[in-house]
C-alpha cells in the first residue's frame, strides 16, 4: 500500500527540484523558464508537504516549504489530488488560493513539467541529462522513503554511505546513519558501497526495471564493491520502492 503523503513528498522534494537542473542544462527548459519571473507555492493536503518553485531570469529554484511571498498559491485539499496532477492521471487539480489570474506563471510551470516529462519519459533527450535527473531523484527519494515509509524502517538500521555513480559522470550518495538517511549530490568522501554504472543508459535501464541487475554486474555493465550487505538490505530494496511509488 503506497502512502499518498510520502508520494506527495516525492513529487515536491524529489522530482520538482529537478526543474533547477533541467533549466540549467536543457536549452528548451531554459527557454520556457524565460517566459515568467515569479514563484508558485504548492500545498499538498491540510498538513502535507509544501514546496516553493521560484523562477528568476530563466533560472529555477525549488525550496521545501514556503519561500518568500509567492505569486501563486496552489492548495490541493488532499495529497492524492496533487499526486494525480503530477502523475497526469485521475482527478488532480488545485484550489488556487492566490494568483489564479496569473495565467502566464501557471502556463510556464505546466510547460516546464511537460518538458521534464519529455526528458524523463521520452527517448529524445540526452541520456546524460536524463540519468542526472534520475540519479538526483533517486538520492532524494531514497531519503524520503527511508525516513518515512514504515516498511523501510528496518533498512534504516544499516550504517554507511552508498554511492550511485555513472562512470566518469554524475554521482549521488546516501548516508545511512543507523537512524536516518541523508542524501547528497556528488561523490562521497569515503563510500562504503559503490554502484558504478558504466553508461547513463545502463543506469536508466536499471531505473526502469529493464535490466537484470544481478547479471549486469558480472557482465561488467555495473561495478559494485564494498558493503554489499547494505546494498542487499537497504539500497536496492529502497531503489525498488522508489520504482513502486513512481511507476
Amino acid at each position, binding site marked *: 500500500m503506497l502512502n499518498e503523503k510520502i508520494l506527495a513528498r516525492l513529487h515536491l522534494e524529489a522530482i520538482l527540484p529537478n526543474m533547477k537542473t533541467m533549466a540549467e542544462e536543457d536549452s528548451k527548459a531554459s527557454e520556457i523558464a524565460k517566459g515568467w519571473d515569479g514563484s508558485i507555492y504548492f500545498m499538498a493536503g491540510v498538513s502535507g508537504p509544501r514546496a516553493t518553485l521560484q523562477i528568476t531570469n530563466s533560472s529555477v529554484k525549488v525550496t521545501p516549504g514556503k519561500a518568500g511571498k509567492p505569486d501563486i498559491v496552489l492548495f490541493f485539499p488532499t495529497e492524492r489530488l496533487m499526486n494525480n496532477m503530477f502523475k497526469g492521471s485521475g482527478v488532480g487539480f488545485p484550489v488556487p488560493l492566490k494568483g489564479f489570474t496569473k495565467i502566464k506563471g501557471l502556463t510556464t510551470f505546466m510547460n516546464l513539467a511537460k518538458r521534464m516529462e519529455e526528458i524523463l519519459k521520452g527517448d529524445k533527450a540526452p541520456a546524460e541529462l536524463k540519468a542526472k535527473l534520475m540519479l538526483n531523484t533517486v538520492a532524494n527519494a531514497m531519503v524520503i522513503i527511508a525516513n518515512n515509509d514504515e516498511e523501510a524502517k528496518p533498512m534504516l538500521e544499516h550504517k*554507511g554511505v552508498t554511492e550511485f555513480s555513472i562512470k566518469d559522470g554524475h554521482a549521488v550518495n546516501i548516508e545511512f546513519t543507523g537512524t536516518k538517511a541523508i542524501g547528497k549530490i556528488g561523490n562521497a568522501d569515503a563510500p562504503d558501497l559503490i554502484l558504478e554504472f558504466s553508461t547513463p543508459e545502463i543506469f536508466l535501464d536499471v531505473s526502469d526495471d529493464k535490466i537484470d541487475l544481478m*547479471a549486469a554486474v558480472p557482465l561488467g555493465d555495473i561495478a559494485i*564493491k*564494498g558493503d554489499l550487505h547494505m546494498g542487499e538490505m537497504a539500497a536496492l530494496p529502497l531503489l525498488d520502492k522508489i520504482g513502486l511509488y513512481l511507476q
Partner: protein
Amino acid sequence: MAYTFNKSKEMFARAAKVIPQGIYGHFTPVILVPGAYPYFVQKAKGSHFWDIDGNEYIDYMCAYGPMILGYANEKVDEAFMSQARNGTAVTIPSTLLVDLAERMVEINDCADWALFGKNGADATSLALVLARGYTRRNKIVLAEAGYHGAQPWSGSNHVGIIPADRNDIIMVPWGDLNAFKEVVEENKDQIAGAMFTPYHHPVWENQKLPEPGFWTGMRRVCDENDIILIIDDVRSGWRLDLKGAAHYFGFKPDLACYCKAIANGYPISALVGTQKMRIVASKAYATGSYWANSPEMAAALACIDEMEKIDVPSILRQRGEALMKGLNELAAAHGLQVTTSGPPAIPFMKFANETNFMRSQLFGAECSRHGVFFHPHHNWFISTAHTEEDIKKTLDVADKAFKAVKDKFGD
C-alpha cells in the same frame, strides 16, 4: 602470473540471455568480486577445482559445505554410481532407506528416527511442521541473521516474500538467552519451536560460538515451556562432531536438520529426532519426487563410514587451525588487523578495522587470481582433502594478497 577469466565471462554472457541473474542464488558471482573470480567449473578433484579457463584453485568453500572428503571421492562416488546402475528414482524405495535411517540413529546423538529429503530446506521446513504439529502452536523463534534456507518463512526482504509469510516468526539475537526468555514470556503457550544453528555463522559477520551455559539454558527454557528445540546443523553437521554439533556443545535437541556434508556432495538431507517426536513425525506428510532416491543414500552411507573411519572432525580441526594460525601470523607481519572466527573446521577471516569488506574483497580477489578460493563475505570450509602442501601454498598466496591490501589501504 595472475589468472584471467575470459571463458568464464563469455559463458556468463550466454547464461545471462536465458537465465535470470545468469547464475543465481548463493552461487551468484555478484557476492564474490566479479571479474576476479571464476564463474564456471570444468572439473574438481580432492581439494582443488579447475575453472573453464583452465585455472586451478585450492578451494576453501567446498561447494559451500557439501564437500568434506574431497571432490570426486572414489569411495563415495563408487557407492553412488554402483547404486545408480540399479535405478535412481524408482516406484518403491530401496532397502538403503532403512540402512541409512539405522545408520543415522546409530551415529547421531539425538536421532531415534530419521526422515530424508533433498535439501537442507526440506529438513528445516519439515522440522517446523513437526514442532507445530506436536505442540499445536503456531509461533517459531529464529535467530536474527540466521539462515535456514531460501523458503519464505526463513527469508528476509527478498522480492515476493510478504509479511504474512513470516507472521508467526519471532526473531531474537543468536546466543542471547535472556532475549529468548523474554519472547517466551511475551508469547506464553504460543511458541511451537525454536530453531537455531548450533553456533552462529551469519554471512557478512564474524562467527560466534555459544557462551558457556547458553545451550543448557536454552534446553531448560524450552523444556519448561514445552517448546521444541530444533537445531539446524545443515552447515556445521559432521565437521565438528559426527554425533552432531549439539553433542559437541553438550546438549540434546528434539529435532536436528542435516544436509551438505552428509553425502560428500550428493543431494540428500535428513531430519532426525528424539523418541518424543516420533509419533508426530509419523503423522506428517513428508515427501518429494526424489526423496527416496537410493544412489544418494548409498553415497551417504559410504560417506558416513569414511568420516567415521578417519575421524573427520579431528583432521579438519588440525588443518583449520594450521590455516588460521598462518593467516593470523601473516596479517600481523604485514601490520594488518584480522579477526578469525568460528570453529577451525569452518573458519572465517575478516579485517578487524573495516565494516564494508573492501579489504576482504581485495584480499579475496588477489587470492582468487593466484589460485586460492576464499569467499570475502561467507565462512569457509575445510575438507580432509586439504593437505599440508595446500595450506603452505595457500599461505604463500595469502602473503602476497595481504601485501596488496597493505599497499592499498595502509592498515
